[in-house]
C-alpha cells in the first residue's frame, strides 16, 4: 500500500502502427509479443492490448495456482512458469488482453516491463509508447518531509495543493516562501492563530508587491552571505499577471535572483471565481457570466510565460502536474537558475471547483490540456532559447479538452473554432521561436556584469545538493 509504480503509457494519437514495438518485444522475449497493436476505429488509427499492471489485478485473483502475483516493489504482475498449470483462467480475468495465449507454446505471456527498461518503448519511433516514471517520483518524494502542515482547507481534488506540496518537497527547507493573496494562503499556507501553515519561513505580501519583497529578501540574504536560500513565491495567476505584474516584470528586468512559481488556475478562484488576465476566451467566470447575451469571456488570455521570455529571464518554463517527470526536471532547473537570475515557472492548475471538473478528472484535464496544445510544455533560457519538452505534434483537437470542463459547456461552434485557431496560432509562434534553438545546455553560469549582487559563487552540484536538502 502507498507505493506508486512506473508504467508504460500508450498515446494512440501518436501511433502510426509500424509494429516495431511488437517486433522488439518478440525478439527480447523469444516468443509472442506481449504488446499488441491493432487497427483502430478510423483508418490509420491504432489501439493497443498490453498489461496495465492493475492495482486490483483480476488475473491474480482468479488464478487457482498462485502463479501470478503483483510485486509490491515495482508493481509488475509477475508470472511464475513453474506454478502455472496453463488453465488460462487469467485470460478471463483480464479486460484488456494484457495476458494472452502465446500460440506457439500454448502458455500465457504477459508484459513484465523488461525490468524497468521496456524494449518496446526504446524502439517506438513516434513517442506513442512512453515509460512514465511518475511512480518513482511519488515514491522518492512522497517519503520526504511534507513542508506544508496537514489539514489545509483546499477544495477536494485541488491541483494547487498538489503543486505546492510537491514543489516544496523538491525545493526543501532552505527556502523563504511568499504566498500572496490567492488560493494558497486561502487554504492555510500562512497559517492560523499565529502558527504558519508551512515548515519554512512564509509571508503574505500584498497582491501587488510579491516580487519586490522577494527582491529585498534575496538581496539581504546575499548581503549576509547566505547564498544557499531559495527565495521564492507560490503565487496565483491574478497576483502574477494582473495586479502583481509590474513587480514581477520589474524584478525580472533587474535580474533578481528569485524563483517565482505562478500557479495558474485561470482566475481569482478563492474569492469567487472572477476572471483574470489569464482566463481563456469563452470561459465562464462569475464576472464573465453565461446568459442570453454574454457567453463567457470575450477576450483571449495573455500568455504570461511568453511575456516572461521577453524579459530575458534566466529561466522560464511551463509545466503541468499531468506530466510530473517534466515538472520535477523543470523544478531542478528553475531552482538552479534562481541562484543566478530571475527564474519563472508557470504551472497550469485546473480548478475542480471553479472550472466545474469532477475532482477525479483533474489530472486527466491537466494531461489533456497539454495533449491538446491548449497548454504546451516548453522551457526557455536566455542562452539557449525556447524548446518544447513535450511534442506539440499530433495534438488532440481542442474539443477533447474543453468537453471535460464545465466552464466551457456553453461554447458555440464559433467560439470553439476561435479557441482552436488561437491555440494553433500560439503553437505556430512557439514553433518559430523553438526552430533556431540549440539543444539545452546542461549548466548555466551567471553572465558577467550581471546587475544582481554578486555573491560568492557556489559550484553547481553543491547548489543542487542544497536545493534538494
Amino acid at each position, binding site marked *: 500500500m502507498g507505493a506508486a509504480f512506473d508504467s508504460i503509457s500508450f498515446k494512440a494519437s501518436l501511433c502510426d502502427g509500424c509494429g516495431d514495438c511488437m517486433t522488439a518485444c518478440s525478439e527480447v522475449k523469444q516468443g509472442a509479443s506481449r504488446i499488441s497493436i491493432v487497427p483502430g476505429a478510423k483508418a490509420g488509427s491504432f489501439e493497443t492490448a498490453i498489461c496495465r499492471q492493475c492495482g486490483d489485478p483480476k488475473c491474480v485473483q482468479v488464478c487457482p495456482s498462485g502463479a501470478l502475483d503483483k510485486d509490491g516493489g515495482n508493481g509488475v504482475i509477475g508470472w511464475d512458469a513453474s506454478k502455472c498449470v496453463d488453465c488460462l483462467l487469467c485470460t478471463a*480475468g483480464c479486460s484488456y488482453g494484457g495476458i494472452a*495465449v502465446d500460440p506457439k507454446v500454448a502458455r500465457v505471456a504477459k508484459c513484465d516491463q523488461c525490468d524497468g527498461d521496456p524494449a518496446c518503448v526504446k524502439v517506438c519511433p513516434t513517442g506513442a509508447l512512453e515509460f512514465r516514471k511518475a511512480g518513482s517520483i511519488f515514491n522518492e518524494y512522497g517519503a520526504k518531509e511534507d513542508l506544508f502542515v496537514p489539514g489545509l482547507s483546499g477544495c477536494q481534488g485541488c491541483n494547487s495543493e498538489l503543486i505546492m506540496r510537491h514543489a516544496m518537497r523538491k525545493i526543501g527547507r532552505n527556502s523563504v516562501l511568499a504566498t500572496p493573496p490567492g488560493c494558497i494562503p486561502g487554504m492555510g499556507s500562512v497559517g492560523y492563530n499565529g502558527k504558519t501553515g508551512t515548515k519554512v519561513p512564509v509571508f503574505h505580501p500584498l497582491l501587488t508587491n510579491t516580487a519586490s519583497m522577494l527582491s529585498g529578501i534575496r538581496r539581504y540574504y546575499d548581503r549576509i552571505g547566505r547564498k544557499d536560500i531559495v527565495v521564492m513565491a507560490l503565487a496565483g495567476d491574478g497576483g502574477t499577471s494582473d495586479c502583481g505584474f509590474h513587480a514581477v516584470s520589474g524584478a525580472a528586468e533587474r535580474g533578481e535572483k528569485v524563483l517565482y512559481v505562478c500557479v495558474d488556475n485561470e482566475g481569482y478562484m478563492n474569492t469567487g471565481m472572477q476572471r483574470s488576465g489569464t482566463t481563456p476566451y469563452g470561459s465562464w467566470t462569475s464576472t464573465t457570466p453565461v446568459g442570453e447575451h454574454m457567453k463567457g469571456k470575450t477576450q483571449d488570455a495573455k500568455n504570461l510565460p511568453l511575456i516572461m521570455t521577453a524579459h530575458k529571464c534566466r529561466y522560464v518554463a511551463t509545466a503541468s502536474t499531468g506530466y510530473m517527470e517534466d515538472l520535477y526536471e523543470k523544478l531542478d532547473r528553475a531552482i538552479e537558475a534562481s541562484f543566478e537570475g530571475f527564474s519563472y515557472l508557470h504551472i497550469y492548475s485546473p480548478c475542480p471547483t471553479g472550472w466545474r471538473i469532477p475532482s477525479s478528472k483533474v489530472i486527466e484535464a491537466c494531461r489533456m490540456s497539454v495533449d491538446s496544445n491548449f497548454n504546451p510544455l516548453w522551457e526557455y533560457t536566455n542562452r539557449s532559447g525556447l524548446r518544447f519538452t513535450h511534442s506539440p505534434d499530433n495534438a488532440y483537437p481542442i474539443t477533447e479538452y474543453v468537453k471535460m470542463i464545465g466552464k466551457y459547456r456553453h461554447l458555440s461552434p464559433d467560439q470553439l473554432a476561435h479557441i482552436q485557431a488561437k491555440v494553433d496560432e500560439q503553437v505556430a509562434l512557439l514553433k518559430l521561436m523553438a526552430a533556431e534553438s540549440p539543444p539545452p545546455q546542461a549548466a548555466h553560469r551567471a553572465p558577467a556584469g550581471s546587475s544582481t549582487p554578486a555573491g560568492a559563487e557556489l559550484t553547481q552540484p553543491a547548489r543542487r545538493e542544497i536545493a534538494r536538502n
Partner: protein
Amino acid sequence: MPEAKYLLVGSSHAALEALRAIRLVDPDGSMAMLTRDERLPYSPTILPYVVSGRSGSDQVLLRDPAFFTANNCTYVPNAQAVSLDPKAKAVTLASGEVWRYQSLLIASGAAPAIPPVKGLDGVKYHVLRTLADAEGLRAAMGSAKSAVVLGAGLVGLHAAENLAEAGLKVSVVEMQDHVLPGYFDAKASTRIEDAFIKHGVDLKLKRKVVEVSGPAIRVTLDDGGVIEADLLLVATGVRPVTDWLAGSGIAVDKGVVVDEVMRTNVDGVWAAGDVAQATDFASGKPALIGIIPTAVEQGKIAGQGMAGDSYRKDYAGGLPVNTYRFFGRVALSIGRAAATDGVEAVETESGAYRRLVLEGDRLVGYASVDEPFDVGIMGELIRRRVDLSECKDAFLARPVETGRRLMSEQWR
C-alpha cells in the same frame, strides 16, 4: 469464547477476496478465517493438476502463514462449522468450540453431489473436491488398471484425462447428449469428445447408472451394459454446503439466497462463492454459478459490505466462464455460448471452431476450440452490453483484434 469482528467461514477464492476487501478499509478489525480443510487456502480448480502430478500438494497453496500474520487474520484449519445462531451471533464448530462475530461471511463452498444410485453407498468411490481427495485419487490410480468416471463435467473430464494419460482404461458415463453440457454447443463438444475417444477413453453418453456394486467395481447402465473397473470416481456435480445453516433462519434455496450486495436475509450475515445463490447476468434470475470469477467478484462485494466500504457496487450477475484444456488443446467459452433460441450464432468450422453468439448488435456468448481468444475482453463486451453495430463485420471476421481495439478505446 473466541471472537472476531469479521468471521469468514471458508478459505478459498471468495473468502480470500473478502479478506482483501475488508483490509482495504479496515486494517485493524479482528478477523478469523475458519475452514473445514486441514490446509492453507487452495483452489478446488487446481486439483486435477495435483492428480496428474503436475503440481505438488505443497505448491498449490494460495497463501502462506505470513500472509495471515501480515493481514492480522487468525487462520483456523480443521474447523468445520456445524451450526449458526444469528441471534447470539455465534458459529459452533464440530469440536464444540463457539466463535462469536459481528459480521459473518458464509463462504463454505460446495461439496460433491452424490447421486442416489443403488449400491453406491456400499462401495468405495472417489470424489475430487479437496487436496486430500486429489492425493487419494493419485495414490489409487497408481495401482489401478481401469477406471470409471460418473459425469462428464469439468471435474470428470479433467480426471478422465489424467487417468487415461496415466495408462488406465477409462470409461465416462454421462446422462446428457454431450460432454461439458451448458458450456459448449454440440459441435464444440463433439470436438472434445473426439479427442477423448482418440485417447482411448470410452464415452458413454446419454446413459444412466442404475446400479453399482463392489468390492470390485461393477457399474450397470440403463441399457444393460456393465462396466467393470478398479476405481470409481463420482463427478456428477457439486451442491452448496448449507447443511450447517439448518435452523439458523438463513434462507437457503439451491444455495444461500443473497441480494445484489451479497447480504443474506439475516442482518450481519453475508454469503459468497459456490455456496451463494446470486443472480445470473443473462436472465437476472437466481442461479448457482460456481466458478472462480464469480467467487472473486462476490467475495469482494461481500467484504466491502462487511467493512462498510462506500465504493461497493451491486453485483451485476454471474457470467458463465470456462477455460478448458484437454490433451494440450484449448476450449474456451463465456456467456451464453451454447444458446440457440432468439440469438444469432456465427460459426466457423474450418480448422479451429469458433462460435459467436449475438443478440442484435450485442455479444452475448463466445466459444472456441483450438483457437484461443481474450476471454476477459469478450466478457467485458458482454457485461457492458457494448453496441457492435459500427464494427459488426470487423468483429465477426476478426473478433480478437476488434475486441482488443474496443477495450483499448473503453480504457480511455
